[in-house]
């Protein structure tokens, strides 16, 4: 961002930034990160640490796992594996997002920041809003989205951290519940194609089932099996048409 940006790039960045203000995800994100700030406080981390976890990890479920396992004294390897597994979903998200951003001549380093900003809320909104943006503006637009959501999340992390002392347990529980409910609703809204809806439904059933069976890497396997089954049903349906 050091070089002066051409006006179109800057306005695309601002358009992305402003788009987060009217997005329902900002409210959801605020709630989710208030909860994360609160649990960081409860597990004895500092407010600066909590803020850095939001900036660096930038994935709600991964942060919930990181804070609760580290705080409970789990080994570093154990924590890293759990966080890594919960973040596997970022790989296909980035793979699905980047082709929308790329143009001939786009350099790899230009994609690293949008890739870092890729998390559920940003991904869902980017997939919805990007088709309306001219391709040359999309990277800046994504960075604007990421910065907007990032600012919201950081504010919420600090707010939650200081609220934690005064928040009654039921309200903390309600804040933690925001994560699954909000993610479910947003994924539902974004699933317009049959393949996505099936993947969601199969994943909801197989995820806990695989976890209950205590297979190693259960989240990854349930995702691959559920996603692939959904994809095969979609292919079969296309073929029968």
């Amino acid at each position, binding site marked *: 961002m050091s070089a002066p940006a051409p006006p179109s790039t800057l306005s695309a960045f601002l358009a992305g930034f402003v788009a987060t203000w009217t997005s329902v995800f900002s409210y959801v994100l605020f709630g989710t990160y208030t909860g994360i700030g609160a649990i960081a406080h409860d597990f004895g981390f500092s407010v600066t640490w909590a803020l850095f976890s939001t900036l660096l990890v930038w994935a709600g479920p991964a942060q919930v796992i990181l804070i609760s396992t580290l705080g409970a004294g789990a080994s570093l390897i154990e924590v890293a594996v759990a966080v890594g597994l919960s973040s596997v979903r970022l790989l296909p998200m980035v793979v699905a997002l980047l082709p929308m951003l790329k143009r001939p001549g786009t350099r790899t380093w230009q994609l690293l920041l949008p890739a870092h900003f890729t998390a559920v809320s940003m991904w869902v909104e980017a997939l919805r809003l990007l088709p309306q943006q001219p391709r040359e503006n999309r990277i800046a637009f994504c960075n604007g989205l990421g910065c907007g959501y990032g600012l919201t999340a950081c504010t919420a992390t600090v707010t939650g951290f200081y609220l934690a002392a005064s928040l009654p347990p039921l309200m903390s529980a309600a804040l933690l519940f925001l994560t699954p409910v909000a993610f479910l609703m947003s994924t539902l*809204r974004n699933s317009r194609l049959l393949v996505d809806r099936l993947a969601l439904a199969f994943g909801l059933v197989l995820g806990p089932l695989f976890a209950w069976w205590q297979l190693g890497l259960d989240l990854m396997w349930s995702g691959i099996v559920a996603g692939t089954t959904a994809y095969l049903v979609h292919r079969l349906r296309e073929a029968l048409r």
Partner: protein
Amino acid sequence: MSTHGELAAYLALVLAGFLPSEVWRWLGVAFARGLDEDSEIVVWVRAVATAILAGVIAKLTIFAPGVLATVPTPVRLAAVAIGFLAFMLIRRSVFAGVLAGEGALIIGALVFGG
């Protein structure tokens, strides 16, 4: 927390939090080279990503973290179902779904013990 403990906490944040997440994003950048957004492989990986996220959603509901675990499991599941119904009935609104789900959780926890 002591200065030493604080330093260890930041080291743990980078090693066990940042790197295990970021590495997937970097791999995504590497894999996405030369992929078309409508290609079959992207449709498939999107399905896998959606299914993994669905797994996280279901696991956070069923094997709930922290104080959320003090709310009985049937209440949590019913709250998700009520949120889903509100979402479907009220113009596929994320806001309506979240509000209904949260309301149901709080009322359920108050009525059935939390």
